[in-house]
């Protein structure tokens, strides 16, 4: 029993509780608590990473029903996601503090914000499917108030759509977990042997459960027919979108599918029984479909949302390719996509907050007005397209290699096509930003006083720049021992070479 994983969870949970109780007016104290909790969490996560590097897996377990435990366990895969979330939480928090300055309901917002990250950490550290389910549902609950935060009828509608999808997904997941439990009994992530036995006894039933779980998780991962909530949820404030797309919700779905394939059913079993092929196909289709839809959007955030639909499926594509390289590509894209997408959303938020820009056609010439933000945006967009040496390139490279390794060269075609589509929907935007003439007046201009270097306020600008830099660094220094790639390699090595 090790309390460290619990402590990671509790930092943000306690922060949430304290913030709920704080009076609305205590802005400074609230910001302080937020930042302190984020930093503390980051430190704790680093401790955990150290432990995992030394092949020590801290575990916390608490029996919540007879024979059924809540298990928090830090393994390599968990730390990949936990590291990403805790890092990005820090930046998102900073960004949100700036973004919501002078907005009402901050107590509620930041409380649920912290709760949301607490659930994400729980998802990351979950040591078995039940724990995963608990935090997965908690995530739904804590994001709903963020989605409807603005309280307009439109956002309430979006919240309803979000709930319908995620709760239905949650019910399917619950059903799957319950069925699995009835078949196999409790299993911690990684104990694939017991399941393999059960699989050979009832292959049909177990495959059914696999797809049930896949659909349940796929709702949050926004795979093709289940993605509709994601673009609607765009009405939420920008930090929330960043959280949904890069840090928490979508990633939780993708992460769950990784857990499902690797640690519940086991990649070899899944591959042998042909469970992966449907996943590959859906992922491939979703990649193309998302990109295609992104192309048609005129709202910046909507375009980014469909881009997310497409990009998250890269992760799924990677893990559905049997073989270490494909897995590596998928895993590392989990991180890279997070970094790049968070940058893009920050930038979209900056545009909206500083100049009131929401639509793509309003971006004309904004590069001259907000050069730093626009630079960050460019970096993120190019990364998404997969231009070396930005992070996105690394992921796509390994995905391609993985496809060849798995003997599915057609996947390469999908990758190329989607890259072209990516370019098609990002490059015109970049052209507008840098090469068009600025309009006479911006839709809505914020006051000059708070600007940093004629751009946005420092709270907004700094996180954007840092994440942009990080996504560049992740690509540039991919070979370094501390890079996301190395960590993903570590996981893959431990997975494929036990």
């Amino acid at each position, binding site marked *: 029993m090790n309390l460290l994983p619990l402590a990671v969870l509790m930092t943000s949970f306690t922060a949430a509780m304290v913030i*709920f*109780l704080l009076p609305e007016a205590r802005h400074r104290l609230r910001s302080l608590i937020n930042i302190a909790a984020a930093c503390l969490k980051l430190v704790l996560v680093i401790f955990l990473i150290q432990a995992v590097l030394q092949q020590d897996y801290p575990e916390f377990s*608490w*029996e*919540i*029903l*007879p024979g*059924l435990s*809540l298990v928090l366990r830090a393994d390599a895969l968990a730390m990949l996601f936990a590291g990403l979330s805790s890092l990005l939480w820090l930046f998102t928090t900073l960004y949100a503090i700036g973004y919501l300055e002078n907005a*009402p*309901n901050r*107590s*509620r917002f930041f*409380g649920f914000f912290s709760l949301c990250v607490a659930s994400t950490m729980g998802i990351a550290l979950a040591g078995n499917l039940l724990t995963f*389910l*608990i935090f997965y*549902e*908690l995530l*739904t*609950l804590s994001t*709903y*108030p963020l989605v*409807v*935060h*603005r*309280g*307009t*009828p439109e956002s*309430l509608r979006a*919240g*309803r759509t979000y*709930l319908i999808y995620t*709760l*239905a997904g*949650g*019910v399917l997941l*619950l*059903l799957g977990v*319950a*069925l699995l*439990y*009835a078949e196999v009994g409790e299993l911690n992530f990684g104990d694939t042997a017991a399941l393999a036995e059960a699989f050979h006894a009832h292959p049909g039933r177990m495959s059914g459960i696999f797809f049930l779980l896949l659909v349940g998780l796929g709702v949050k991962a926004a795979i093709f027919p289940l993605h509709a909530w994601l673009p609607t949820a765009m009405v939420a404030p920008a930090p929330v979108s960043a959280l949904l797309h890069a840090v928490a919700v979508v990633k939780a779905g993708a992460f769950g599918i990784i857990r499902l394939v690797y640690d519940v059913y086991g990649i070899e079993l899944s591959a042998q029984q042909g469970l992966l092929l449907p996943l590959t196909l859906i992922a491939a289709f979703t990649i193309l479909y998302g990109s295609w839809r992104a192309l048609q959007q005129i709202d910046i955030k909507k375009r980014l949302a469909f881009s997310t639909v497409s990009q998250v499926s890269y992760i799924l594509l990677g893990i559905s390719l049997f073989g270490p390289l494909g897995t590596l590509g998928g895993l590392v894209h989990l991180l890279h996509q997070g970094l790049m997408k968070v940058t893009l959303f920050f930038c979209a938020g900056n545009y909206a907050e500083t100049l009131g820009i929401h639509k793509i056609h309003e971006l004309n010439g904004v590069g001259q007005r907000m050069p730093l933000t626009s630079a960050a945006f460019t970096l993120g967009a190019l990364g998404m397209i997969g231009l070396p040496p930005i992070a996105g390139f690394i992921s796509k490279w390994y995905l391609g290699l993985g496809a060849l390794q798995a003997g599915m060269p057609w996947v390469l075609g999908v990758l190329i096509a989607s890259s072209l589509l990516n370019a098609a929907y990002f490059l015109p935007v970049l052209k507008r930003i840098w090469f068009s003439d600025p309009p006479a007046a911006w839709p809505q201009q914020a006051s000059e006083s708070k600007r940093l270097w004629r751009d946005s306020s420092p709270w907004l600008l700094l996180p954007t720049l840092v994440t942009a830099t990080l996504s560049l660094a992740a690509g540039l220094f991919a070979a370094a021992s501390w890079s996301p790639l190395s960590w993903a390699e570590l996981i893959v090595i431990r997975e494929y070479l036990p």
Partner: protein
Amino acid sequence: MSSLALLPWLLILPLAAACLTGLLPLRATQISSLLVILSQALASLLLLLWMPSDEPLFYSLGSWGAPLGIVLRLDGLAAAFLMMTSLIASLCGLYALSYLRPSQQPGFWPLFWFLWAALNGIWLAGDLFNLYVGLELLSLAAVGLVALGGEASRVKAALRYLFAALLGSLGYLLGVSLLYGAHGTLDLELLAEVFHWGPLSALALALILAGLALKTAFFPLHTWLPPAHAGALTPVSALLSALVIKASFYIALRLWVELEMPERSLEVAQLLGLLGAGALFWGGWMALQQVKLKQVVAYSTVAQLGYLLLIFPLLSSSSSEASHLASQGGWLMLLSHALAKAGMFLAAGNLILCAGRSELSALAGLSRYRPMNIFAFGLAAVSLMGLPPSGGFSAKWLMLQSALISGQWWWILVILLGSLLSAAYLFRVFSHTYLETQDSVQFGQPSLMLELCALTLAALSILLGFFAPWPLAWFALPGPFTEALG
């Protein structure tokens, strides 16, 4: 001191408190109520801690023993329910202290204490006729509480409730008469020993079940419940929804299992399950249609009772593991619903106090001004929806497992759809609180005590999800029920 010596005080003290509060002036009433609340909470806690783990306790009133005298029985189940009652009634009592107007309090307290005494009596009763008297005591106290203050709508609800409760009691009594005529005893232990199946026994059990179903407000006999529970004063609503309807269910399930009905009537059990499904869907649908907050919560009670009905078919399974899981899940469901519903009613009462009106549309913007209330309401809602981590989830999980093991997959669908429906009507409430309005409405502010009571109950229903092994261990302590379950 053993738990046996402590036992009678759980009955004497509330009864004495009822007399005292009927006699004393207001100030003294409040203080004595507070003291007795504390002593009750303490007594039930000690009782639970001192429960022997090897055998149930029997307490012969008047030292006469079973067939002639009345015996109280304290097994794990009863102890757990005593504790639940103490917890919820204490908090509702504290709530009432600051919620009720001083002019309402003299009417409230004697009834409150009789209610509590009746509940304790029912959990402990080991005698069929004694249960009847207990049920009447409970019903009349509940009706009196509903009608408190004598406003037209409350009197109307109380009358409906009273007639339903009286009819239910008589159905029960008729069944008891037949059982006595067939077996010559009223003691439950003895009855279980000499019980023989026949037309008289069958009719008797049917009547008893029907009577208790009416008192519990099982679908389709639920029509009295929403006006009574929604119309009453807030602490009363909480007591009613959390505890009162549970008492008749408790009796029904105990009789069902201890007289070995699960093996005898598979069809009836399936029929009851079907009614449960009906309750879930109809109650949920009606809750979706309501425009008043407390009505939503009251219809949610109707719906949630459906889960309790599902226990009956789940118990009738050939696998003893499945029945065990079903009973554990069922009791846990009861417990978590009690906590969550009490918390939710109290939170709803606070919200209505803030908004000044009871319509859902009046809640717009409240989530900003009273986040703690909304939070309490939300916690309770999580448990009611059965989302993890909460007592409701744990209970639902056990029931799902039971259904899976016994191969009754159709109930799985019902359980899952029911939780989706409950999510639908509960989130509907939330979406109203998030709506931002342009005109700045003046909101009232309930006292901290009121908010804390609601929050505590709601939080407890969530914590139950983490500490479920404790109550489950109590439920599993040896006793007539667990023995009959096998």
